[in-house]
Each structure stands twice: as structure tokens, then as C-alpha cells.
């Protein structure tokens, strides 16, 4: 499926990101190829969500470049970004469906903004995507009437309505039971199979990552620990990666004086 010979569709070079004075990502380099499913893994606070926000252009990096489909989004004009956005889909952690619209209107929203199709055609296209994510018949419901898993699937339908070349997921399995989570993974694989979309998934769910990934990138404290196939990651002997895979607690060295100071609330 993966086309490693061609130019990468996502090219991140020396990405440095920070919130205020705190540096979160310390120079990330990553290439993602066409048709590939890349899973970005890491524990909480590893910088994976920040990384995702930067590669979809929601935040601006301090340094480095990010090229999506050949366009450097750190220097692109508003018009270029507008054109690029038509080819990119994103499924947010909480779904981020527009609560004032029903499911069908939510899914049609990108079509309404970017195309001049007539309403009936848009309805049909939106219903097709709903069938694809097994939500046929739920088009008239409001987001508040759906369960967590259904919201994620509806959000996915909205993300793929424009048949994007790049598709991003933020924690697709978070808050879902194992069965629903597995179904969502199947849907992700189905989409890649049907549309040859390049997919980037940010998650900390190991099972889900191993099921869908072509390659996995492990982030730790704002650095890439390793990028490799599922087998390479499993066989890697890096202690931090093994801890993550085997759910080992972090080995934090405790400084007795520092510990006492924290307990007593003394600042120095």
C-alpha cells in the first residue's frame, strides 16, 4: 500500500514548538509517504497533540518547516492554505461536531463551503459517507443525541466528505469501549483501502496502534525516540519504548530533600 519511493506527502523538518516560554517539541524530523498509515505514539505530555496541531496548521511553529502535499504551511499564503484545506480532513478527539446543526448538516458543511453542488447532491454524498461509517439513517439527529462512538464516526464522515488526500486523527479510540474502538480501526483501514488516503493517527492506545499502523513514531518529551514498522517497534530494545509497550511505570529518581521541600511547600 505504501509508496515509499515517491516524495513524502508530509515532510516535517526540525520542528520546534513552544507554548509561551516552555519548549514542547525540540526539533522533530519526520517524513510520511503517500497511502501510509502513520501512528504517532507517546505518553501524556510527550508532545504528540502539540505535534498534530502544528502539522495541521492550527498552531505556528517557532522554527522548522512543515510541508503538506508539497506546500510549506509555515510560509503559505491564506489563499494557498484555503486550497490546501480542501484536501485535508481531521477527526478531533471529542468529535467537534457543530452542536447547532444536525448530523447531515455537519457532514455537508465542508461541501457547502467549498463546492457549488446542489443541495440534493450534497445530501446524497453526505449519506454515502454516513453509510461508510455505519451511521446510515442517523442523519437527522443532533450531535447531543449520539453516543461517544457515534459522534466519532460522524466526525470521521465529516472529515472524509471532501475525499481528502491527508486524514488526521486525534485519539480516535479515547473514551470508547474495545469493540467500538476496533470497529473504528476497521473503518480507518477501509478508508485507506478505498481512497488511498494518507492517514496520521495520534494515539496512546497500543492495541489500536498495532492494528492499523504501517509505521509508528514514538514521541517522548518532545523528541522522536524511534520511527519504524510495528515489528521494529516491538523488537526495539530501547528502555523507554519497552516501558511504554509493557505499561511499566516511569522510573523517576526521587531526591529526598527536594521531595521534603515539595511536601512542606517551601519554595527554596
Amino acid at each position, binding site marked *: 500500500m505504501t509508496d515509499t519511493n515517491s516524495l513524502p506527502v508530509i515532510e516535517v523538518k526540525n520542528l520546534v514548538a513552544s507554548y509561551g516560554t516552555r519548549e514542547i517539541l525540540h526539533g522533530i524530523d519526520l517524513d510520511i509517504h503517500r497511502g501510509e498509515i502513520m501512528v504517532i505514539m507517546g505518553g501524556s505530555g510527550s508532545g504528540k497533540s502539540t505535534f498534530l496541531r502544528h502539522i*495541521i496548521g*492550527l498552531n505556528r511553529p517557532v522554527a522548522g518547516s512543515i510541508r503538506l502535499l508539497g506546500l510549506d504551511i509555515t510560509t503559505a499564503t491564506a489563499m494557498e492554505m*484555503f486550497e490546501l484545506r480542501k484536501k485535508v480532513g*481531521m477527526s478531533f478527539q*471529542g468529535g*467537534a461536531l*457543530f*452542536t447547532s446543526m444536525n448530523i447531515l448538516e455537519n457532514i455537508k*458543511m465542508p461541501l457547502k*463551503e467549498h463546492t457549488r453542488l446542489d443541495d440534493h447532491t450534497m445530501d446524497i454524498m453526505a449519506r454515502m459517507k454516513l453509510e461508510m461509517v455505519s451511521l446510515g439513517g442517523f442523519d437527522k439527529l443532533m450531535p447531543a443525541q449520539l453516543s461517544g462512538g457515534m459522534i466519532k464516526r460522524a466526525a470521521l464522515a465529516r472529515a472524509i466528505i471532501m475525499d481528502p488526500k491527508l486524514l488526521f486523527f486525534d485519539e480516535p479510540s479515547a473514551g470508547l469501549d474495545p469493540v467500538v474502538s476496533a470497529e473504528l480501526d476497521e473503518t480507518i483501514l477501509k478508508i485507506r483501502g478505498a481512497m488511498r488516503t494518507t492517514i496520521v493517527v495520534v494515539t496512546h492506545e497500543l492495541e489500536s496502534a498495532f492494528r492499523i499502523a504501517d509505521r509508528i513514531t514514538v514521541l517522548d518529551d518532545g523528541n522522536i525516540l524511534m520511527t519504524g514498522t510495528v515489528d521494529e517497534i516491538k523488537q526495539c530494545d530501547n528502555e523507554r519504548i519497552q516501558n511504554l509497550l509493557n505499561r511499566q511505570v516511569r522510573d523517576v529518581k526521587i531526591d529526598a530533600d527536594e521531595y521534603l521541600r515539595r511536601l512542606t511547600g517551601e519554595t527554596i
Partner: protein
Amino acid sequence: MGYASALLVECFYWLVRGRSRKQPVKMPTIAEQMMQIGIGAIPITSILSFTIGLMLAIQGIHTLRTFGAESQVVLGIALSVTREFAPLIVGILIAGRTGSALAARVGTMTVSQEIDALRVIGVSPIRYMVAPVLLSMIIMVPLLTFYADIVSMLGGAFYVYHELGLSLEAYAVQTRDFLSVNDITQGLMKSVVFSIIITLVGFINGFSVKEGAEGVGKATTRSVVQGISYIIIADMIFTYFFNK
């Protein structure tokens, strides 16, 4: 202040250039906002304006009676309503009604990542949300103010008839003789400025929400308090320059 100016400029940019950039500010959205902001506020505007008119008449007659000049109350009501009370009362009403709703809605959307979702889809939140509201406000708030002018004077006329026996017709004739177009435009110009203040304050507070439900609550309160405060300060500045 800098951000507010940038937001205002960007709104006008989308209103003017949106169509040529294939991202027009949509008419149905504007119409819907005009309904909510303007038409929806008519009942409460009517009640408040009528009451203000009554209040001014009661107070005016009482004060002027000490000079034996009760008949001048018509002039007093006409001037204070058109120049001050109608724009101010509508401004405060809209700040409480629409300003709070804007901040709460945008704040909730920010928290639930709906604003991020808009941006990822390629929709500028300013074009999609702020510009239609701003345009609707600039149209509807002055219209409401003009409506409040009339209803307040009607309220005044009602009490004046009751107290001094001046007929509605005579009241209307007197008012028309006293009032100049300038008095009404002064009030309407103020209301345009108030509508811009309320919109910007509401959206800026909404967009600035970072943390959950508490943040939305704070932003909503802040937008009402700031909105009303800025309106009163702007009103004073306007009044000073108009009367120089």
C-alpha cells in the same frame, strides 16, 4: 485594543472581498442573525422604551413644575430620548442579550474545538461567525434605536396626556417642531458605535476562553460588564463632542 481593531478590519475585509475569494459572507446567516438580534429584541425594547418615556415624563413634569414650565416637558423628552436614552437603553439591552449570547456560544465552541474544526475545514471563523453578526448588528441596533425613539416618546405622550391633558396629536406636532434631524442622527450614530463595541467585546471574550465551563461563564459575565462599561464611556465621549 489592537486585536479588536484587527478583528474589525478583517470583518470588513470579508464582507467586501469575500465573494471574490470564493468565501462569501452568506446572506441566510445574516438574515438569521438579524432576526435573532433585532426582531427577537422588539418585545423587550418596547417595554423598556415605553417605561423610559413614562419615567422621563413623570420626572420632567415634576422638575419643571417648580419653574412653572410643565409644557416644556415635550421638548425635554424629545431631546433626551433621541440623543441619550434610546441609544443607551438599546445598547445596554443588546449588550446583555446578544453580547452575552455571543461570548457563551463562541466560548463553548472554542472549548469543544468547533472553532478548530472550522479552521481545519478551511472556514475562517471571522468570516463565518463574526462578520455576519457584525453586519446584522450595525443594521439592526440603529433600527431598534429608532424604534425605541418612537415608543419612548409614545410613553411620554401617554403620561403627558394623562397629567397635562395634551392630546397625542398636539404632542406629535410639538415634538416635530422641536426635533431636528440632527438630534435623531446623533443617537443613531451612537448606536452604530455601540453595536460594534458589543460585537467585538462578545467575540474577543468568547475566543479567549481556554478552560471549560468556568471559563465560558467568566467570559460571558466579562462580555456583559465590559460591553456596558465601554458603551457608557463611548456615550459620554460622543455627547461631549456632539455638544461642543
